[in-house]
């Protein structure tokens, strides 16, 4: 009995955590900014730093970041991100990472928390069609929060 109860409350906890994740299609932008954490949790700057260099994040493909100067080959397409936390608030940074095209019209920056409205969507980098399955955003809600937590550390003043 006790066991069963414990199981139930664990399930409840899991489902509340799930409910707090804002779905890509439900994100509310105010002037390009997003006020609430997408995962309902705080971000981890160390995990965010990893994403800057890897996988579907790969932010340094386009941005230079002095704090990550130990990593090779920073691109030049977007502005350098040094001091970015002096220029933008946390909600603004979250909005830019989730969907930069809301803040910057027609931006070349990919929308990392978006799942619809694509032309000829592929199955990752295979070149094949995506098919009917669920479309996952480039980064998860928690990964967005991790990246934002890292960006917050980029202060110059």
């Amino acid at each position: 009995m006790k066991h069963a109860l414990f199981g139930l409350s664990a399930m409840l906890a899991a489902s509340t955590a799930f409910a707090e994740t804002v779905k890509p299609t439900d994100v509310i932008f105010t002037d390009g900014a997003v006020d609430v954490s997408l995962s309902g949790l705080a971000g981890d700057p160390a995990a965010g730093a990893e994403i800057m260099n890897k996988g579907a994040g790969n932010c340094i493909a386009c941005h230079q970041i002095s704090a990550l100067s130990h990593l090779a080959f920073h691109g030049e397409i977007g502005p350098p991100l040094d001091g970015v936390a002096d220029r933008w608030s946390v909600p603004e940074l979250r909005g830019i990472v989730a969907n930069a095209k809301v803040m910057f019209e027609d931006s070349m920056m990919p929308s990392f928390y978006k799942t619809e409205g694509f032309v000829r969507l592929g199955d990752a980098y295979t070149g094949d069609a995506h098919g009917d399955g669920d479309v996952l955003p480039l980064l998860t809600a928690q990964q967005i929060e991790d990246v934002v937590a890292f960006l917050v550390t980029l202060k110059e003043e």
Partner: protein
Amino acid sequence: MKKTTIAIGLVAVLILVPGLAMSGPDDDSLTINGEISIVTETEAPAHAENLSTIYSGWRFRSDETQAFQMDDFENPGMIGVENAMVNWETVDGSAGESCAGCHGAPEDMAGVRAVYPKWNEEKGEVTTLEVEVNNCRENRMGAEKWKYTGGDMTDMVALISSVSRGMPVNVAIDGPAKETWEQGKELYYTRTGQLELSCANCHEDSYGLMIRADHLSQGQINGFPTYRLKNTKLNSVHARFKGCVRDTRAQTFKPGSPEFIALELYVASRGNGLSVEGPSVRN
């Protein structure tokens, strides 16, 4: 004394602004075998509306990569040309013909690469060199088609390009080809895939800049086929298009598809005025 200070000041600026030294095309000029001079920079044709100057991709490569293309003995793409010379002479198919049987020497093809893709009156559509090669193989030689981006095909296109090196690219975009050209233009500016990037995002808005470890060129095709040091083989235009579209996390079009043929015509036309350069060498 004063001069030195200025010089040092300049070096400091170059170091302070990371990437500045890499930006844009370099100033090198290309002559192949000490005799074929190649136009790698010229005024953009009027229909390339958003460009003022066009550059060959050669100008964005490192000195080491560039050097491979300056001498045919160093250019690994010339091995493909030699392979194709054998096929040029070889009788294949039910008609007992070879390319040489109808066309004479490969040099008689001089000028052909420069005007393709081109409107084919008989077929009533724009065709590429690959389509024409297969048309000869199937309908004139009674031989089997080659795979569109296969080795024999790309080698043959390299041979046909090599004899036009130094001639200006000059594809026609008006008359019956206009509709296809418009379709290609539409594709060039369409942002595809989950990364929502168009050809123009990388090759028109951002050429000269680094994207991760890659120095973006204008994505011109005057140098095709290109021998890439990365995959150590000759690469055809449509194989390159496929790679670039795939990298936007999109569903690509097929090599030889009407879409890629239209895109090839459009991209080729953006290079009108540059020299035919294939087989070129890239990384």
